[in-house]
């Protein structure tokens, strides 16, 4: 009989389904149930290839036209001991026939490649969720590695779930018996068996992954063959073995705007945005960077763009990284440095130098949970006040923040624009959730990318380095330009000559000039649009990566017929004009953020008299839609 018997749980909704459909022998005639949105989490050991599995499922779902959002969740350790809880690596994907803004609160399906993967993830699941267990890794040793005294299959923790037990190890071994591969290599195809099974369950085509394998293992045809065989075996298992009593389909998302799309992760989009920004500014990129999680991928990506004239330098530390970028900016290139919180702390003094010398510079901060080393792979928005204020002296600097993976592209261009047009360093905030999450990105038309060429002064007539134009912006001069030799530095400058000055009144004047220049950025940024009613009881204000969760929650509450609106801030500093008028039209402004209420403090000081209500969360995790909905409903009463 069937070795991997499905174990329907007592309270699972599928039970009803099972009794309703008297199953014929031909599996192809299984009922196809349409679903709007599904969340799958693939979980296994760090070495099980779960990230690849998740990415393939994502790309195929994008291929069939679903909207989607993904969230990888991997340990900070590179390879924690095999089979242990810290070694579990996960990838969550939500695919949908309607617009989605988050990877989903609770998975509908968990694929667990070992006991540790099950136990780490089980509490996140939706009641009644499908759990696919690989019993091939379910021996005494595996349970012990996961610190489990009792097999969870017998302990009752699986009650209420629909559990499918499959010995994937054996199945793959059987499928690849004639492949000639070593048993170790055979076992490495397990993830594609799993992927095939999920493709069957959710009626996805195999072709995109089959093609991808051909390209991926182009140099080893035997691996292409083996992985393709495993993928097909997993798919066919859905037909042959009676694990599932129904199949599902998620139709293409018809509300996606026409255009060309690709699935993109935040760090990728941000890197591309920097290249695009440099292109529009007609400058070459110099990136000075020091490896740090979760920002390193930007260094990796930009270092491969030499054919785009991008120069990258892996510096000896965070300070040298920003300093080399400042040096390149002085010499006339687009200086960029990328980092995360601890690196931001180290770069602080150099940021002040860039402010004082009024050189363009883009400082990218991929925020992570702090303080200190904190939780490197977990997300947080707790560098906000450091970004806006965290330097010695009165040191104003524009701050731009990304709200989604695709938005990081536009925000990177915006940071480059402000930096080069206003001769100022700019901080670009992202976070771990955006950096590693992905979504379909509607690619910009090349003609829509408007150039903003940098201007270099060459005319010596009447020149001094701190001579300002009407916007308060000083000239940028490339060393090597004849007749414009000049010296700059961190000492205070005389406003009328650029020479060193310790004059009291001059210092106040220069401080005001620097402040005013940054405020002048407001003349070039739009007032953010409101999503929902133009006035009412509640406005939910967000910034950064909370966009998707807030949007989903506000959308849900609006559909319940209640009055709630959303506004999202891209320009964190200086803030756009017109916000005060918007805020005044609502009774309460709720500010959810992944920190102790830093944006709320900023807003209270900028807009006294507006009742801002802080909703902080500091768990290293994004807001779930559910918790935001509950909060909004409580306020609306």
């Amino acid at each position, binding site marked *: 009989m069937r070795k991997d018997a499905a174990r329907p749980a007592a309270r699972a909704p599928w039970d009803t389904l099972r009794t309703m459909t008297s199953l014929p022998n031909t599996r192809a005639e299984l009922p196809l149930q349409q679903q709007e949105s599904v969340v799958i989490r693939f979980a296994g050991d760090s070495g099980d290839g779960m990230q690849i599995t998740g990415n393939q499922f994502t*790309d195929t779902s994008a*291929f069939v*036209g679903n909207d989607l959002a993904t969230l990888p969740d991997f340990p900070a350790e590179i390879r924690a001991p095999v089979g242990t809880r810290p070694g579990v690596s996960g990838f969550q994907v939500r695919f949908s026939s309607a617009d989605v803004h988050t990877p989903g609160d609770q998975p509908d399906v968990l694929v667990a490649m070992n006991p540790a993967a099950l136990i780490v993830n089980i509490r996140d699941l939706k009641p009644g969720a499908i759990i696919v267990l690989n019993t091939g890794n379910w021996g005494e040793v595996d349970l012990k590695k996961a610190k489990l005294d009792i097999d969870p299959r017998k302990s009752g923790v699986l009650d209420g779930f629909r559990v499918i037990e499959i010995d994937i190890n054996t199945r793959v071994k059987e499928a690849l018996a004639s492949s000639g591969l070593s048993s170790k290599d055979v076992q490495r195809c397990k993830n594609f068996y799993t992927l095939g099974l999920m493709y069957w369950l959710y009626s996805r085509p195999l072709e995109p992954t089959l093609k991808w394998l051909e390209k991926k293992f182009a140099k080893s045809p035997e691996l292409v063959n083996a992985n393709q065989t495993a993928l097909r075996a997993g798919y066919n298992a859905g037909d042959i073995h009676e694990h599932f009593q129904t199949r599902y389909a998620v139709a293409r998302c018809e509300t*996606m*705007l*026409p*255009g*060309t*799309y*690709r*699935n993109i992760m935040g760090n990728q989009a941000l890197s*591309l945005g920097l*290249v*695009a920004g440099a*292109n529009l500014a007609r400058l070459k990129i*110099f990136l*000075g960077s020091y490896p740090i999680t979760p920002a390193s991928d930007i260094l990796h990506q930009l270092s491969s*763009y*030499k*054919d*785009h*004239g991008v*120069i990258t*330098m892996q510096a000896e530390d965070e*300070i*040298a990284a920003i*300093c*080399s*970028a*400042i*040096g*390149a*900016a*002085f*010499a*006339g*290139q687009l*200086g960029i440095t990328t980092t995360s919180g601890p690196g931001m702390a180290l770069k602080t003094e*150099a940021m*002040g*130098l860039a402010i004082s*010398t009024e050189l363009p510079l883009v400082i990218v901060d991929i925020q992570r949970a702090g303080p200190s080393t904190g939780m490197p792979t977990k997300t947080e928005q707790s560098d906000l006040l450091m970004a806006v204020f965290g330097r010695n002296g009165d040191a104003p600097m524009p701050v731009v923040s990304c709200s989604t993976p695709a938005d990081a592209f536009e925000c990177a261009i915006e940071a480059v624009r402000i930096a080069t047009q206003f001769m100022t360093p700019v901080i670009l905030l992202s976070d771990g959730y955006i950096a590693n999450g992905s979504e379909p990105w509607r*690619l*910009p038309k*090349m003609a829509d*990318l408007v150039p903003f060429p940098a201007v270099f002064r060459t005319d010596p007539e009447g020149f001094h380095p701190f001579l300002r134009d009407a916007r308060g912006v000083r000239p940028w001069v490339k*060393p*090597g*330009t*004849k*007749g*414009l*030799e*000049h*010296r*700059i*530095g*961190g000492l205070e400058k005389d406003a009328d000559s650029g*020479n*060193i000055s310790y004059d009291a009144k001059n210092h106040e004047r220069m401080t005001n000039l620097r402040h005013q220049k940054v405020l002048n950025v407001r003349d070039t940024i739009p007032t953010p649009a409101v999503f929902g009613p133009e006035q009412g009881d509640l406005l939910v204000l967000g910034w950064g990566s909370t966009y998707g969760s807030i949007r989903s929650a506000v959308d849900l509450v609006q559909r319940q017929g209640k009055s709630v609106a959303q506004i999202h801030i891209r320009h964190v500093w200086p803030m756009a004009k017109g916000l005060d008028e918007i805020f005044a039209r609502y009774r309460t402004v709720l500010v959810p953020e992944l920190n102790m209420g830093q944006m709320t403090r900023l807003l209270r000081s900028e807009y006294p008299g507006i009742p801002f209500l802080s909703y902080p969360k500091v768990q290293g995790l994004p807001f779930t839609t559910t918790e935001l909905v509950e909060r909004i409903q409580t306020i609306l009463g």
Partner: protein
Amino acid sequence: MSDTNILTKKDLKSDQEVRWCPGCGDYSILNSMQAVLAGLGIPKEEFCIVSGIGCSSRFPYYMNTYGFHTIHGRAPGIATGVKIANPNLSVWMITGDGDGLSIGGNHMIHILRRNVDVKILLFNNQIYGLTKGQYSPTSPAGLRTKSSPYGSVDRSFNPLKLALGAGATFVARTMDTHPKHMEQVLLEAATHRGSAFVEIFQNCVIFNDGCFDAVAGRKVRDERTVDLRAGEAMVYGDNHDKGIRLDGFDVRATSAAEAGVWDPTVVSSAPATVLAELDGREDLPTAVGLFRRVNAPVFDQDVHAQVRAVLERKGPGRLEDLLYTKDAWTVS
């Protein structure tokens, strides 16, 4: 101004009033620098002088070239960025014993190991001058200063050994009391391909006056220093009658006739290190001049060579191709 390549010292003087203490050794260095740079045949707009923080680091303000007075210890990073962004510039870095060896010690070793084409002048006065007299990493142990009233218990750095250890391809030493020697060393540094590290014994007239008198004083320096020159015998003394020669990992006093011939281009940095360790020896002279000069790949040149190689192979990249990749799909 038809021929910009003929400069005079005066062309390189900025309009800023020099604000070092009267009698400071920095004046002499500024003077020598202006003389050397004027003679290089490089237009003045192609010089960029980068400094950190400290008395020495005010240097760029007094040169009528491009200049960047940066932050404490970080001049190597900024100079590296300048040089990579514009390899045509002749980039000079001015630092001191505190700036370059204490707060900026990490950056110093990395600019040297990378062999960035930047000429580095380290003004060593064995004291923190600008902060008004605390011991520095080159102060001799026991030095009584404002922050060491009972004498410093810190062991000191030998700047040359640090540079040699970091793999510097050009290492030299000179003295503020000897402009002629200084100009010769700076000229050699200017023509070296890659990082050139020059330690300059510099007197701080206020907080550490006379710190190098016993070695670099005008009356004693011929007797107390031996000038290392490539291919020449290591002879010294008022009457050029004394010599030294390497003896394993030590140095031995000899007559002028028996003096060893110095070769700064040998593969091993050990002989130069042995000579750097003459500092403070009573029985032997302190070595100055050219310790090391070897060829090695130059970082900034290799960075651009790599970009050129990729461009040649792939052709110039188009932004559109980066965005519109093969995995893109169309929704109509």
